[in-house]
């Protein structure tokens, strides 16, 4: 350990000439972003040369890019030079000292979701020693996976232990110059997950970030890469229903999925970042690039997401259906309450013959929130026989919120079949009165109607996740009718 930190100190000392702190304990870079910062991050992670080169390419490209402004969201201008790009272990003095210093509303929510007491402090970002409460579970878990030959580890570990795999697939789905936030992520990403499922292996369990030791503090620029080799299958769960606090307001994650011939990846997300208080103060900006590449024949990628958190969500999990008979699916529930803004949807790019895609999007708006669905279905000339079905439903609760739908359809092959269905509904006074006349309280009635509205998506979630997601929705919409 000591030699390792010596190495780091030497490396950092060499490359960073601006009197930058070399004390590994404090481990935080001062705000600002330039090439030296990118080098420093790479050095601290003891990355091989190719990784640094890749980061630098991304950074140089990012410098010339403009922040996108087409999304239906509004927020104050972000000063990218005011952000610290390496703050992995947060310093204790900036954190709440105990749960007494945490927003009581947040604690109330933990209570309602039934989060165990010892978990609450960690989620709220209180300075406690990180104790993994089920070490034995994690150990069994790791053994089982290695027996199957599955690689599931922090991204930084993969870079050093499996550099060939990382090199082969990194940036092949979301290139470093893809978009403003993806380029930024590529330059400065802190950590994330790496998954490789070997040929013909069906991953013996759901992979969940929760069980990844070292999961805490992956920071604001997370990067995930999942590769499913020929004939393999994996189901990956991201996130957690508990509202997570983080002092980093800007989050720009990148997720890349690669499915080779006959492989299937199921990626489920429950995202509940702190949305801010009722006035939207302190909420997370979540600008994410998620994309899956159905590279092989008969490959399948399925995205399921339940989005309830964040002040702003900008997120379009997409599928590139390159292989023949490739299948892409997108199931989404996005909830926006109070002052939350969500601009989310998907892109299905049909390239392979007979590729198929399904989109089911359920947007719920309450309070003064704005919820937008933005989707693209593109059928390339070579995608003979491509099919898409899109269903896009919005539910409004109250009369101060908004729902917006921006579907884009581009068909360049005459054999393509594309269907788009959309509905907008409002929870009506008649529906509520009907339920109340049957003895069901107004709040329970709203929950019941909302859950009914989202059923098609919840069905796609792994069982235990589905139950949690349902509870989460109820808590998120509490007091929405009044």
């Amino acid at each position, binding site marked *: 350990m000591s030699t390792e930190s010596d190495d780091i100190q030497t490396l950092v000392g060499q490359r960073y000439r601006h009197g930058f702190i070399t004390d590994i304990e404090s481990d935080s870079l001062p705000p600002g972003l330039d090439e030296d910062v990118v080098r420093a991050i790479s050095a601290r992670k003891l990355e091989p040369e190719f990784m640094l080169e890749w980061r630098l390419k991304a950074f140089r490209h990012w410098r010339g890019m403009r922040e996108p402004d087409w999304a239906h969201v509004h927020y104050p201008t972000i000063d990218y030079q005011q952000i610290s790009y390496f703050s992995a272990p947060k310093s204790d003095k900036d954190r709440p000292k105990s749960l007494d210093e945490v927003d009581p509303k947040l604690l109330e929510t933990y209570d309602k979701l039934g989060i165990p007491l010892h978990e609450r402090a960690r989620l709220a970002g209180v300075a406690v020693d990180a104790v993994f409460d089920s070490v034995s579970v994690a150990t069994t878990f790791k053994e089982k996976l290695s027996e199957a030959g599955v690689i599931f580890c922090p991204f930084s570990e993969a870079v050093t232990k499996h550099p060939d795999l990382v090199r082969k697939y990194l940036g092949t789905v979301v290139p470093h110059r893809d978009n403003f936030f993806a380029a930024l992520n590529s330059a400065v990403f802190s950590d994330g997950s790496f998954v490789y499922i070997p040929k013909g292996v069906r991953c013996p369990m759901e992979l969940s970030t929760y069980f990844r030791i070292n999961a805490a503090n992956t920071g604001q620029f997370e990067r995930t890469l999942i590769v499913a080799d020929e004939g393999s299958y994996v189901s990956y769960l991201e996130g957690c229903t508990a509202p997570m606090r983080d002092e980093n307001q800007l989050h720009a994650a990148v997720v890349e999925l690669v499915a080779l011939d006959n492989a299937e990846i199921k990626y489920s997300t429950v995202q509940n970042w702190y949305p801010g208080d009722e006035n939207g103060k302190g909420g997370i900006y979540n600008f994410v690039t998620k994309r899956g590449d159905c590279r092989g024949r008969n490959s399948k990628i399925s995205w399921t997401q339940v989005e309830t958190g964040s002040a702003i969500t900008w997120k379009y999990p997409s599928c590139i259906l390159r292989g023949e008979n490739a299948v892409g699916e997108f199931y989404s529930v996005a909830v926006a309450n109070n002052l939350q803004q969500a601009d989310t949807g998907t892109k299905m790019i049909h390239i392979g013959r007979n590729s198929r895609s399904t989109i089911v999007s359920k947007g719920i708006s309450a309070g003064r929130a704005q919820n937008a669905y933005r989707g693209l279905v593109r059928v390339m000339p070579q995608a003979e026989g491509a099919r898409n079905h899109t269903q896009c439903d919005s539910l409004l609760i109250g009369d101060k919120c908004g729902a917006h739908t921006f579907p884009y359809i581009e068909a360049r092959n005459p054999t393509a079949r594309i269907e788009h269905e959309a509905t907008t*509904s409002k929870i*009506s006074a*008649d*529906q509520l*009165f*009907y*339920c*109340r*006349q*049957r*003895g*069901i*309280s*107004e709040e*329970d009635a709203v929950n*019941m*109607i909302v*859950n*009914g*509205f*989202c*059923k098609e998506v919840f069905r796609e979630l792994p069982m235990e996740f589905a139950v949690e997601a349902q509870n989460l929705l109820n808590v998120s919409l509490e007091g929405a009718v009044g």
Partner: protein
Amino acid sequence: MKKLLEIDNLVAGIGDTRILNGLSLTVGSGEVHAIMGPNGSGKSTLAQIIAGHDAYTVTSGTVTFCGRNLLDLAPEERAREGIFLGFQYPVEIPGVNNAYLLKAALNARLKHEGKKEIDAFEFMKIAREKMSLLDMDPGFLNRGVNEGFSGGEKKRNEILQMAMLEPRLAILDETDSGLDIDALKAVAKGVNSLRHPDRSIVLVTHYQRLLDYIEPDHVHVLSKGRIVRSGDKSLATELEEKGYDWIREAASA
């Protein structure tokens, strides 16, 4: 006979429009009452006010249920106390499973009464029994609440809910409207099977037809927001022969 519902001199309406003008009515335990009257006489308003719809404002008068002031209670509290309204136009709630709504309603009631809530297994058992009693297809339970139901199915679904919830007072608002003769018979059979000394039923109807199948103990004629005539079931027959004009004339005389 024990008094279950007592309405005394009720004046109510929507906004500035007065609909009920000093209506009084007493329903005893186990009785079946029919409230008849021409369109716009206030029949449905009365049903909605008893159930607690907040679109209506009560200006004066009292409504007492089992000795309690009913007007103080929220709609869900009234329901849990045992008041059931069979809606004239049951609303569709897409995506919400019929069984789910019913189970939630039943458990809300049981909880209110301090009884143990029932699980899905027990619920299905009871529901199947009630459905066979009403000649209903069990597949009904798995459909969305009233979603895509025919008129007859919606009304039958209301009766199923009534059978499950076993109310002390059921108000059936125009349950016969829009039903063909077979559906009407089926609904009437269901209602008759639910007649019980501890359960009162108020039938709100425009036509005498329903009363051929459900025999009321009392018939009241409503006109311009007041009960202008009460009698036994022969009053209904009289109405059928003479029409409502006769009542209107009698009322203004």
